[in-house]
């Protein structure tokens, strides 16, 4: 239990200090934002809207400090394991970038093109990013999933999803 996670001893280095920095900066942001809140005219309760954010922000700052000390003294957060996870290599940023691209494409295209199209792009793109190279089979599955889920939500559940360019066809 006393050793760091496998494969990440040296490589991980002190990058966890970045987490402490992130937490500290977030804490400062929360505190500053709370102190900048205008005086409330409606609620004159003893604890105003700023009190809890200040406490939460302080918690973040204090935790960030302790975490920095802990990392400095050799403590390490252990990366999460799992059935499909191999922690021996570095993070595969190329896959992540492609997944994020597919994800953002869906967010941007869902209203202009509609879910049946943008959802299919998301699925196909993600499968491609994750290493699937059966282009036609992937596309078929993607279309079935996105059109099927559109029908399920709109007809089955009464939740509207954008239909976009396929208006009149579906």
């Amino acid at each position, binding site marked *: 239990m006393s050793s760091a996670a496998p494969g990440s001893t040296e490589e991980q280095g002190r990058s966890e200090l970045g987490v402490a920095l992130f937490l500290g900066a977030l804490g400062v942001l929360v505190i500053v934002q709370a102190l900048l809140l205008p005086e409330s005219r409606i609620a004159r309760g003893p*604890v105003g809207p700023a009190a809890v954010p200040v406490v*939460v922000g302080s918690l973040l700052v204090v935790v960030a400090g302790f975490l920095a000390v802990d990392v400095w003294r050799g403590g390490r957060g252990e990366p999460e394991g799992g059935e499909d996870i191999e922690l021996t290599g570095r*993070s595969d940023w190329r896959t992540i970038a492609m*997944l994020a691209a597919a994800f953002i494409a*869906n967010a941007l295209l869902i209203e202009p093109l509609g879910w049946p199209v943008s959802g299919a792009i998301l699925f196909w793109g993600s499968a491609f990013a*994750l290493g699937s190279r059966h282009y036609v089979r992937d596309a078929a599955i993607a279309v079935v999933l996105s059109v099927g889920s559109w029908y399920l939500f709109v007809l089955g559940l009464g*939740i509207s*999803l954008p239909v976009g360019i396929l208006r009149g066809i579906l």
Partner: protein
Amino acid sequence: MDALNELMGGFATALTPTNLFYVLLGVLLGTAIGVLPGIGPAMTVALLLPLTRGLEVETALIMFAGIYYGGMYGGSTTSILLNTPGESASVVTAIEGNKMARSGRAAQALATAAIGSFVAGTIATLLLALVAPTVADLAVEVSPADTFAIMVLAFIAVTSVLGSSRLRGLAALGLGLTIGLIGIDPTSGQQRLTFGIPELADGIDVVVVAVGLFAVGEALWTAAHLRRRPIDVIPVGNPRMSRQDFRRSWKPWLRGTAIGFPFGAVPAGGAEIPTFLSYVSEKRLSKHPEEFGEGAIEGVAGPEATNNASAAGGLVPLLTLGIPVTATAAVMLAAIQSYGIEPGPRLFETEPVLVWGLIASLFIGNTALLVLNLPLAPVWARLLRIPRSYLYAGILFFSSLGAYAANASPFDLLLLLAIGALGFMMRRYGLPILPAIIGVILGPFAEEELRQALQISNGQLSGLVTPLTVIVYVIVALVLLWPLVRRFLPRKAAVPVLADAVHEIEEAHHHHGLTDSVSVERHADDGDRTS
């Protein structure tokens, strides 16, 4: 018996054909999603949350009862067949369950898990029906100051789960609380942390947070470290048990229920500690202690029963105080809230039909689980072979669908990705997810209770001090300062079973590399224990 009458009324609600259909659908979907590797029960509930949006409140909650139990059983199936616990509560199941599966007894392991879950779930739900109204009656007397103190305890308890770094738990809690702050402050109408973005004024939808942290975070994290070789899944026939298996299982089922329910009902901790306690006590009481570690059926029967019983027990604080203690319960709370219902002591008075319908459908869901899952086990086992590229692409696909359906806003999709990135970072550096989720969901309530308490006392901080809160804060302080406190305790003070359980937890964590952390504080601990 008042509660029993009410329960009968609940069955009348739950047994209408529509509701029965949805509870069965919930069990099927819950198991199907829960069995997929990498998807724990909490993620299952979060992913399926949008499906219930179009339904009546009662029907939706009843479907949830099915999803809840289905998701948990699905998780156990994965642990047994793949040795890969979806969440910490099924770590123990994997220890003996996977050994059994490897020695050709997968069917028996699945059967004892299913029947044990059924037995424990039924007894524990009955206990819930009997205990919850009484607790609710008591809880009505509880002042906002008390509720706030109990919520603080819940926060601290989830950050200090055995075997993980307290510091990183607190960091996760802080992140969750911060997300919970975003939006218009309900008391004063001030915008907090919205930075003038109109989409943030109503706060971040809990579905987006839960799906982002669990599903998107998990998919991105796994994608970054994807194992590129086929996984070996143990084939399984129809689950069945011999007379001998039954003889060895029934006592662990009952003992597991007895251990699990009280642990679940106390607003502190979740299912991890009781399942380990059950494992350790079965190991001590077993007539076949030599089989432990080689696939002892008691080691599956006990912890699985415990897990289910503690899940039912966890509904006591959820329904009576509005305090969730597990990630799954937290997502359930969010689901209940999304219908404008406030769980709390008055829920039993204001929404009796709903509550009793929900409790009755827990019974039905539990029975459905047994009836459906024993014959369907081979189908679930086949689901484990789904190609990983499709599995994680599918998770991203359905996450986006659910997050978009919640508010029909593309902005939420970008938010989902941002929170997914946060989930990625947390997994990378061993920050546990549970405290963050509890912080997001419970934080706003805690603030409200605090402000109410101070309004009642007219701003005097002494208003926060009642006999109950003093006790609760002392417990909080003890939990926080445990490493210090422990030095002053005599060495033998710890109950041996508890010490064993702690040891097992750390072994298992080490073995599975579940989220846990190494910190300086823990180095000192290790030294203590081995000496």
